[in-house]
């Protein structure tokens, strides 16, 4: 299968190791007998989410069409980002009504963890990470992609794909704080336009993870983590952030 690595624009420019880790994880699957060929098309730029989120749908449309063209040739598109995948899989139909056919690559776009568990049927990613880890369930991965059960819903217990992969790592201990799936307050333009609330929400999340004893805070969304990390470093907290891809790829936490 031909897998295109979809690198979120801000990850490309500001958090390149997250994309590199995702690439390595996918490439390693070939090493365990999966017929997989991974590429990261250099023509990709941005799925259009920041503009769509800000209500600039006219400006977002060309970016969305471009994104689809760049990846159309892939069997699957995989991204280390819940929000970007949610944009493509859930929102492209609204942004480009009647433009996406049933075979559109938008429908074959997956977040990294769900690609591993649902498509590649990976039971476990090998590795060791002897730390207490707080998992931040990003809202897009939770309530749009449904990668894990949301606390408001009464559905049959869905597997938490991200937690499952993390638990497979030796020594990794998941710790859960209060209000485990409350929003971190990043929200795109919200982080800047409603700065006071955004910061209040983020601080509450950090405090919850600190109370739970987390050493590392992780998520499938680097945007949430950058917002939380910005608060931790400004307020002087002990927690370090790492993207799930970095943990699964075997990275160690940096010096504090």
């Amino acid at each position, binding site marked *: 299968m031909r897998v295109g690595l979809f690198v979120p624009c801000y990850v*490309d420019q500001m958090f*390149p190791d997250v994309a590199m880790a995702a690439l390595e994880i996918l490439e390693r699957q070939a090493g365990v007998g999966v017929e997989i060929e991974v590429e990261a098309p250099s023509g990709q730029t941005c799925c259009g989410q920041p*503009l769509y989120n800000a*209500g600039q749908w006219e400006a977002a449309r060309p970016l969305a069409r471009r994104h689809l063209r760049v990846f159309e040739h892939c069997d699957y598109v995989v991204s280390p980002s819940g929000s970007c995948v949610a944009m493509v899989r859930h929102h492209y139909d*609204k942004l480009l009504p009647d433009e996406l056919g049933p075979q559109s690559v938008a429908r074959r776009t997956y977040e990294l963890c769900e690609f591993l568990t649902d498509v590649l049927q990976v039971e476990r990613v090998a590795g060791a990470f002897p730390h207490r880890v707080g998992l931040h369930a990003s809202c897009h991965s939770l309530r749009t992609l449904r990668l894990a059960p949301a606390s*408001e819903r009464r559905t049959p217990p869905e597997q938490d794909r991200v937690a499952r992969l993390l638990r497979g790592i030796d020594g990794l201990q998941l710790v859960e704080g209060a209000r485990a799936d409350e929003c971190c307050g990043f929200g795109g333009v*919200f982080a800047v336009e409603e700065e006071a609330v955004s910061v*209040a929400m983020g601080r509450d999340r950090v405090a919850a993870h600190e109370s739970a004893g987390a050493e590392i805070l992780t998520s499938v969304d680097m945007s949430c983590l950058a917002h939380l990390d910005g608060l931790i470093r400004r307020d002087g907290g002990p927690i370090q952030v790492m993207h799930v891809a970095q943990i699964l790829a075997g990275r160690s936490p940096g010096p504090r």
Partner: protein
Amino acid sequence: MTHPQRAAEFLRDPARAAWHDGALWFIREKRDAASLQVEEWEELRALAAAIKAHTLDGLAGYLEQFERNARALGAAVHWARDAREHNEIVHGLLREAGVTRVVKSKSMLTEECGLNPFLARHGIEVTDTDLGERIVQLRGEPPSHIVLPAIHLKKEEVGELFAERLGTEPGLSDPTRLTEAARHSLRERFLAAQAGITGVNFAVAETGGITVCTNEGNADLGASLPPLHIACMGIEKVIPRVADLGVFLRLLARSATGQAITAYTSHFQGPRPDGALHIVLVDNGRSTIAADRTHARSLACIRCGACMNTCPVYRRTGGYSYAATIPGPIGSILEPLRDPERHGSLPFACSLCGSCRDVCPVKIDLDDQLLALRATVADPRSAKTRAMRGLAWVLSDPVRLERAGALGRSLLRLLPGVVAQGRFNAWARNRDLPDPPPKSFRQLHAERQRTGGAP
């Protein structure tokens, strides 16, 4: 003032904001526990959504059926195009009956229409009888939540208010004793009232009856003591069948307060033998929303308030930060639809977490509608739009993106202070900016390809 400004005001007292947040989270947890009582909870929500979708699709026919049946039961039915007409109709009925003292149970519709001040200008005294509504009425404030009007107040503040207005002992803050004082005071009003105004939770087309739910029994006292009962409702409150009440009522109280059902679920099938019932059907922009493909679904709202309780923004900023009759997620859709100029900041008062959609008993896609509204209210001439277009231009080409990114990273590295003061100021006020990496992914990847890198 915009929502962000009012929100920042509210957060200037972080302890109070945290208290407010905790109070509403507590109700969200009660809702969660109540939903566990119903094994088929998610199916019930889907059923409720489907009944509403069908009803809204054929609303005209159901309103006609309701009117026919309500009249057959002896009720009078009036139609009001807008808030002003609603107020005039209600006033007309009161004036004809020589009424100067009215008791009113909770009705967000009458809030929306500004009924109380209108009647006051015409010399008619209205006593709001829902305890929370009475509290805010005495304070001269609007309700801050559609189900829990005084959720923003501490008991000491209610105590001070009652000492001043009801003559209770200064310093008294015990809720039981304060409620007792309100009971006595309101009993006098109920007994002296010449008319009772209520809202309507559901109007059943099949029978022409109306259903009103309360915990305090105040709607019933208002409708059963004075001879004149006026029931005010938005046209979207009609449902097809009696059987549908079972679906909605199993969802309503559980979603609103975590109770299986309110203490009183009253069904008024026409007037009392010795009384009169007037039902006022109000449009006030609803027919316009009904014709909007994206937003018609927002009319399914049964006013439970669950979206407010679960909203992390509402909890931390309070109902008043929305400066609208209906706050929170549903208000941030309905109010900008009614008045985009005034309420343009509301669709952006949302982090798009989607929790509201998950708790809505009628499955309104609140978060998607808020996003869609952003596209409608965005001003094509604003600085923000121009900046966004600039961003779109940069993002439309990989080379431009790389150059802009490289420039940004260099600036961050060399002049972090300057960057922090500039465009990123709102970000950097309380957050550190990320450490800029020396190379982007596309650079690292290109290098890796050249050196024949992994696996």
